[in-house]
């Protein structure tokens, strides 16, 4: 695994995110609430990526940008799940979990892992999102909102997130050990992480494409 491979994979996800954002902007007003929140997430992701590059240029660790993004990502995802399940998740639980997570995330950023990779935040986020994803699948089976699952954008979004966070969970758990104890540069791991991220964003783009098709030709 070379640095060149890593850099190529590092650009995949942001490029796909930009495509997703373009798709999101088409017929924006007709989109459902949770898709509009997804648009906000995509914008945040692009800002975070731009922030990372900017911080790297000015010789400041780019981890600050990504850490703040990960802290803000969970409340947005939680709200998306809340909307997508027709608000069957208790609002209080969504607010409390998001608030506690954000507080812990900033605590970790300011006092514990600081400018390093905030892997503790990532582990907690992954576990919470996996639970949300499983709940959404359970809700789908209970409610059977559609006979054509492949035409439901949230099905693709949920699959993307369960795939991404499950695939990265073990990596997030051991990042701290690998960096601090093994002094590993994590090149291989980050390359694989980037590939998983690219697959995740590709599924998000598919969801946006399906949503656009549904708006243009509902059936």
């Amino acid at each position: 695994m070379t640095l060149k491979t890593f850099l190529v994979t590092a650009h995949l996800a942001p490029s796909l995110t930009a495509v997703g954002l373009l798709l999101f902007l088409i017929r924006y007003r007709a989109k459902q609430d949770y898709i509009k929140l997804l648009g906000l997430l995509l914008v945040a992701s692009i800002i975070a990526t731009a922030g990372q590059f900017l911080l790297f240029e000015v010789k400041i660790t780019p981890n600050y940008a990504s850490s703040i993004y990960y802290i803000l990502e969970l409340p947005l995802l939680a709200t998306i799940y809340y909307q997508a399940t027709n608000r069957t998740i208790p609002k209080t639980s969504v607010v409390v979990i998001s608030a506690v997570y954000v507080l812990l995330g900033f605590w970790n950023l300011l006092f514990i892992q600081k400018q390093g990779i905030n892997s503790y935040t990532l582990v907690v986020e992954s576990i919470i999102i996996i639970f949300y994803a499983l709940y959404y699948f359970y809700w789908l089976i209970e409610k059977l909102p559609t006979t054509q699952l492949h035409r439901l954008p949230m099905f693709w979004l949920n699959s993307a997130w369960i795939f991404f966070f499950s695939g990265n969970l073990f990596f997030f758990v051991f990042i701290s050990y690998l960096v601090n104890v093994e002094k590993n540069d994590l090149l291989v791991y980050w390359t694989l992480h980037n590939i998983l991220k690219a697959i995740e964003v590709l599924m998000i783009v598919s969801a946006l494409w399906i949503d656009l098709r549904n708006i243009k030709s509902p059936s």
Partner: protein
Amino acid sequence: MDRPEEYQITLLIAIGTVGMLVLAIAIVVFMVFYQKKMIREQLKRTQLEYDHQQRLMQAELESQENERRRLAADLHDSIGGMLSAIRVGLSTLSKLSPEANIEQTKQMLDDTIASVRRISRDLMPSTLERFGLFHAIREVCERFSATTQLPIHFYEQGEVTGLDKSKELMLFRITQECINNTVKHAQATEMIVGIVAAPESLTIVAEDDGVGFDIEEQRNVKRKGLGLFSIENRANLLGASIDFERDRKKGTRVTIIMPLKHEQQA
């Protein structure tokens, strides 16, 4: 990756990651297949409920028709017979006592006998059983036309033989109800009733030039629209499609198309 600990950690991460990915994919695939299965089960249940409802409706209608048949027979045989006997007795009496002025009484009795026959015929049209659907509908058109002064033109095309008696009766009742609705509500000056037998289907059309009606409004109004309800019920049981032409400028046109399966065509 020289140190065994580092190798172990790497192996653990690899196995964990692959395991989680496989689990995630398995969950998604399971979801897709399980949801399809749930929907199939739901559709099956809905179909069973629908079939059960249809059978209940069928049984109710059969019971209704049996009751009508019994009433018609009782009216015709018992009451009709007695009235006829009374009529004969009155005629004999008037011959024996010419001075007795019983013409009015005889007229009232004749009217009553005619009413009883009409009610009996409306309850169970014997023409349907003896001569078939086309004749029965022609007769009901002529009868309504005569009693209400509303010109009802009837036309027929083709012929269907071997149609199940219960289906014939349901088609007759639907047509009768359509004519009834026109007479009661449409304020029409003319009505056309047609029946067309094609190789694959039987079509009945009832059209008038009256005031028309809003089908959705009629469905929503309680206590009214029961005739509409019975038309739609019978059409459902026959597997027929029913169209209340909505975009007409004037009047009403009801089209019932019943697919013909295994019935013989002439």
